[in-house]
């Protein structure tokens, strides 16, 4: 596709528009106390060139999406994406799994504690992503306050450990139950609301929890948080710092496998099918005799359960928690993982969590652009590939006419 003259003209106009648009914020920088003005004209040039080129990419992607849509409507077979081809081919899947298992098993022994710590964080986000995936991906309820349940788990462990000295393994199930309890507590009143209202209410709920933790000093020790939370113990033995990190790593691996197993089983169960049906069409779903409120409530409670458990692990990993770790941005990040991975897709969410958590850690130069990129990813994915990097394979049945009749 050669760019024609009119295309170039269009892109030129777009770049002019963006140069105008970003002029005050990108070019001028003021120091109000010393009354200095800094002009950064080079930024304007970057913006102009950048938007000129990007507008071509944007239009090309839009054009590809349009033709793709037409193809699938007229019945032309769509090529499965790169990941899907690899996942469906047996020749690759066996060695890939073996290599994966080996890599996972030796990772903490080859890499240093710093790398292992990052990996633990990434694994935590996989579980969080999968948990939110139940609520957003399967049941189609946009929950913007997911981090509240994460905070509930973390504070459950922090407080119980601080006051009563309870250990990690005792609190893990308590954290799960507390998460589920808060999920139901929030879910009850708000689940009869329509989708977009639900998003705002959950957002408000998340903020309420954070503000309470920040201001109720007698209960939660306020903004200074809780320090010196015990790391997990192995059958009552307290481990050294480095070995406890390795231990936590394997706990996390077990947790991820457990979560994948449960979510996978849930997806194909009666309740899982009900969630998907509810996501697609509420009215039709009710007409089929599915209890709307109970189904939604289960999704909410189950999603919150995982957040509660990961919260406990988070508290045990960092040994210090304060309300600043549980802001809206955290919820947005988990949501970005689910959106990028593909709503409802287990593999996709896991890959997306690894990409979004590990890449900024290793590309330090870009780490300040992290949230900027997350925001852009959410927009771009919704516009061009709403199904995510690994689309959830939808169960489909082919009608085969009987030859004998």
């Amino acid at each position: 596709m050669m760019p024609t003259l009119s295309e170039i003209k269009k892109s030129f106009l777009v770049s002019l528009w963006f140069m105008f648009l970003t002029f005050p914020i990108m070019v001028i920088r003021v120091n109000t106390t010393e009354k200095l003005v800094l002009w950064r004209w080079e930024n304007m040039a970057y913006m102009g060139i950048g938007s000129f080129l990007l507008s071509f990419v944007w239009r090309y992607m839009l054009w590809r999406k349009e033709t793709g849509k037409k193809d699938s409507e007229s019945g032309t077979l769509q090529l499965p994406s790169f990941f899907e081809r690899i996942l469906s081919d047996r020749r690759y899947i066996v060695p890939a799994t073996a290599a994966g298992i080996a890599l996972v098993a030796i990772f903490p022994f080859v890499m240093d504690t710093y790398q292992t710590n990052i990996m633990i964080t990434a694994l935590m986000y996989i579980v969080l992503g999968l948990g939110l995936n139940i609520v957003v991906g399967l049941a189609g309820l946009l929950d913007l306050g997911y981090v509240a349940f994460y905070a509930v788990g973390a504070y459950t462990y922090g407080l119980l450990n601080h006051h009563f000295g309870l250990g990690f393994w005792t609190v893990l199930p308590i954290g799960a139950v507390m998460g589920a309890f808060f999920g139901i507590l929030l879910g009850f009143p708000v689940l009869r609301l329509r989708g977009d209202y639900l998003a705002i209410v959950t957002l408000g709920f998340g903020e309420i929890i954070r503000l309470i933790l920040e201001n109720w000093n007698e209960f939660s020790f306020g903004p200074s948080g809780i320090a010196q939370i015990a790391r997990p113990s192995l059958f009552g033995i307290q481990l050294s710092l480095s070995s406890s990190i390795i231990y936590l790593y394997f706990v996390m691996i077990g947790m991820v496998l457990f979560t994948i197993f449960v979510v996978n089983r849930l997806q194909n169960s009666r309740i899982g099918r009900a969630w998907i049906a509810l996501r697609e069409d509420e009215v039709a779903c009710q007409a089929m005799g599915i209890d709307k409120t109970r189904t939604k409530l289960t999704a909410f409670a189950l999603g919150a359960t995982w957040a509660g458990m990961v919260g406990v692990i988070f508290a045990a990993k960092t040994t210090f928690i304060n309300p600043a770790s549980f802001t809206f941005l955290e919820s947005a990040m988990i949501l970005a993982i689910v959106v990028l991975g593909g709503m409802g897709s287990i593999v996709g969410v896991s890959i997306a969590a690894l990409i979004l958590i590990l890449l900024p850690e290793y590309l330090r130069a870009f780490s300040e652009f992290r949230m900027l990129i997350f925001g852009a990813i959410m927009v771009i994915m919704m516009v061009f590939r709403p199904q995510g990097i690994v689309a959830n394979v939808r169960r489909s049945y082919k009608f085969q006419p009987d030859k004998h009749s």
Partner: protein
Amino acid sequence: MEYFFELFLGGLTRGSIYALIALGYTMVYGIIELINFAHGEIYMIGAFTALIVASVLTVMGLNEFAILVLASIAAAVYSAAYGYTVEKIAYKPLRHAPRLSPLISAIGMSIFLQNYVLLAQTSDFLPFPSLIPDFEFWEPYSHLLRSTQLVILVTTTVIMVLLTLLIKYTKIGKAMRATAQDRSMAMLVGVNVNQVISMTFVIGSCLAAVGGVLIASHIGQINFFIGFIAGIKAFTAAVLGGVGSIPGAVLGSLILGLTESFATGYVSSDYEDVFAFALLVLILIFRPAGLLGRSTMQKV
């Protein structure tokens, strides 16, 4: 009693700023049924543009009144431009997508714009120049109501009246109401729906920019994060009055402003934001359609 009046007037001021932002939410929701999450960011960008333009003009040595006028115009123009562009990039390609998609796209846009300003400018609070002068004739009453507050109240009232006239009597207002009622029918009778939607974003963004300039010169400082909380509160106000209803948005904003003002004045200021969110949750539970909104049956 004086304390009560002070809180009352403070609440009204707060409420009228919320109203300026809430109108943008309500108008957009009325037309394309989308919670424009990035609207709070448009307001923040308006305030930043005003700050930047005002600082540059101060260095150039213009007189105060000219600075106020030029900075406000720049803020309105740029906010409108951002609102327009955001709609074209993040919402227009998703016109026929499932409901959740544009909402997620809007959240992404909001995060993007916040960090764009954070990276291009600064994460610190910047002192905002006091653009609005202290009036001499208002001196005897200024212990009850500062002159900035007076300007805020008067400006918002004028803007509300103008907006009502615009929507009731002009051609574009009529087109907006038609599109809100039934988009495909409006299209059939010859309304350029895309243009109407763009216009709605432009008008809503202008209002938010005015709100941004006013509140920033009242409070005296801004940073990149002011849009988030203001956006959520304004949305709360819009829902309180009934999303999609313009008088509802104003009523809801005033109620929210007064509630917050009294609650912080008489109960505790630590939980200021909690009151707003709790109010939101309560309203959605007991009256999901809002005070002036009509609840519609879902058609199948």
